[in-house]
């Protein structure tokens, strides 16, 4: 009896220890990324340039793009503070409006819909115009958008694409009922997913062979890659697309709202910095295609590079 109790106690302690160890690992990879890359206040130009704080949302893409902004602005002579991975828009938007951060990468459609209750379309210019109108009232400015978009999309295996000749969503619509689909749990009720597939591409969603998983997570990509499904709802810049060599189908009829990335900057900072912010960040946005963003994700998420290294490498590769 006594030994049994002692044993149970010991085992329970061990259990506690083990679970404590296993639950901690999620935080490790990102912790070092928010460390400032060293102040460069000593630079000769820095004297009359305003100090900038760059923020990002709480996930890799926002953080790595923010880090690219940060390093480019440091090269341009600014002193830059980083507040990466702050969280969701209920944190980042007030931080921008209040001036705790000055710049952060944002998604046109998501920002417009979530923060301002607007209705983004698949038209980038139209959605950006609507966003800019809203931002103005908050003393914020959106610079030029990236060609790359991080929207909901659909991917297939290379072999499926080759076999059935799939390159676009319209191609997919032709063979939709022959394939096993993996979609997000909420797809059937999301106007841009189930009902949208029907509205825009004439795919009868209810008649499809559908499994529900989490969109944009690695499980759905693994399931696609391992032939458990044939079509996966993905995020268009999801790192696994590059890692597994999946084929992202082109949204040729414009189902997904524009989720191109824009640097959102406080008007005050724009006024203080002249056009140096625009001239630094716009050329960067111009080069960030969906593929470039996916590759950056592959580096930081799959290969575990730090945001700092991935951003530095990207800037170097692109001649900044």
């Amino acid at each position, binding site marked *: 009896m006594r030994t*049994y109790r002692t*044993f*149970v106690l010991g085992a329970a302690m*061990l259990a506690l220890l083990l679970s404590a160890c296993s639950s901690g690992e999620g935080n490790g990879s990102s912790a070092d990324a928010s460390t400032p890359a060293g102040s460069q206040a000593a630079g000769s130009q820095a004297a009359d340039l305003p100090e900038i704080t760059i923020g990002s949302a709480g996930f890799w893409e926002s953080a790595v793009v923010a880090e690219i902004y940060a390093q480019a602005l440091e090269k341009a002579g600014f002193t830059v503070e980083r507040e990466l991975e702050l969280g969701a828009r209920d944190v980042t938007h007030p931080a921008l409006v209040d001036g705790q951060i000055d710049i952060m990468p944002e998604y046109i459609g998501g920002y417009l819909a979530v923060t301002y209750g607007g209705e983004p379309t698949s038209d980038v210019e139209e959605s950006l115009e609507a966003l800019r109108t809203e931002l103005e009232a908050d003393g914020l400015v959106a610079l030029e958008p990236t060609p790359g978009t991080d929207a909901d999309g659909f991917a297939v295996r290379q072999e499926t694409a080759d076999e059935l000749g799939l390159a676009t969503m319209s191609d997919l619509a032709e063979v939709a009922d022959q394939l096993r689909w993996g979609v997000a749990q909420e797809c059937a009720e999301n106007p841009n997913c189930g009902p949208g597939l029907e509205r825009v591409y004439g795919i009868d969603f209810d008649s499809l062979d559908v499994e529900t*998983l989490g969109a944009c997570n690695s*499980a759905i990509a*693994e399931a696609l890659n*391992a032939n*458990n499904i044939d079509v996966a709802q993905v995020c268009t810049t999801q790192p696994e697309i590059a890692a597994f060599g999946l084929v992202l189908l082109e949204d040729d009829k414009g189902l997904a709202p524009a989720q191109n990335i824009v640097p959102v900057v406080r008007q005050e900072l724009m006024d203080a910095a002249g056009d140096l912010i625009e001239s630094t960040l716009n050329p960067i946005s111009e080069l960030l295609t969906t593929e470039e963003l996916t590759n950056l994700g592959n580096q930081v998420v799959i290969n575990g590079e730090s945001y700092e290294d991935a951003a530095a490498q990207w800037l170097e590769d692109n001649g900044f």
Partner: protein
Amino acid sequence: MGATEGVDVIEFLGEVAAWFADPGTWSGQNGIPARLVEHLWVSAISLAASLAIGLPLGLFIGHTGRGALAAVSVANIGRAVPSLGLMGIAFLALLPLGLAIGPLPAIIALAALGVPPILVNAHAGLREVDPELVEAARGVGMSEWQVLWRVEVPVALPVILAGVRTSAVQIVATATLAAAVGGGTLGQQILIGFNVGDQVRIFGTALVVALLSIGTELLFAWIQRAATSPGLRGRPHVPTQPAQVGRGGGESGSWGS
């Protein structure tokens, strides 16, 4: 500030009530009834698998005393493996077989979650049977098999069933995991709530899961009571309770913590 929060909470609970009253909540593929059936189905299969593994093992080591330390150690350490992680491993392992999507990865994780309480309680229940009783049974010429089924198991039944009850409640409360890999269950409603930012749906569904767990607890408590031999019931000194932990009479036995 506090007053505003109070109003917010009342408002939120009002929305939850409205959600429960909405016929849409109760119909269709994502309605509570359809998901509830899935939830119970996944839970029942998982519990059956836990029983199929844990009970024979627990009875064997409890009766013979062989391998007890190893089995109970493994069972207890197994408790430390998070079910979500185990389901992830099962998912990856099932990918090459084309079985990764659906309830199977969750059933594997839930069955593993359910084994330790069953095994540990079966073992402990048998070990705590009065040795003189077992000797007497042998003395009157019972075979080992008869000693097990006619003496040890009936006497240890409350403790064994307490283990089953703990397993069942844990499984029902954790079955929501299945939604992450296409297994449906009430977890699907919770995940959708997270994905579309619908706190009312998350809270309402979580409430249903909690009620279901409580219902499971009550059902198995009733079974436990009904299955206990009248000779063992209501005696102040019952030799089948190894650890007097928790609720009245220490029914939860060695898995009381």
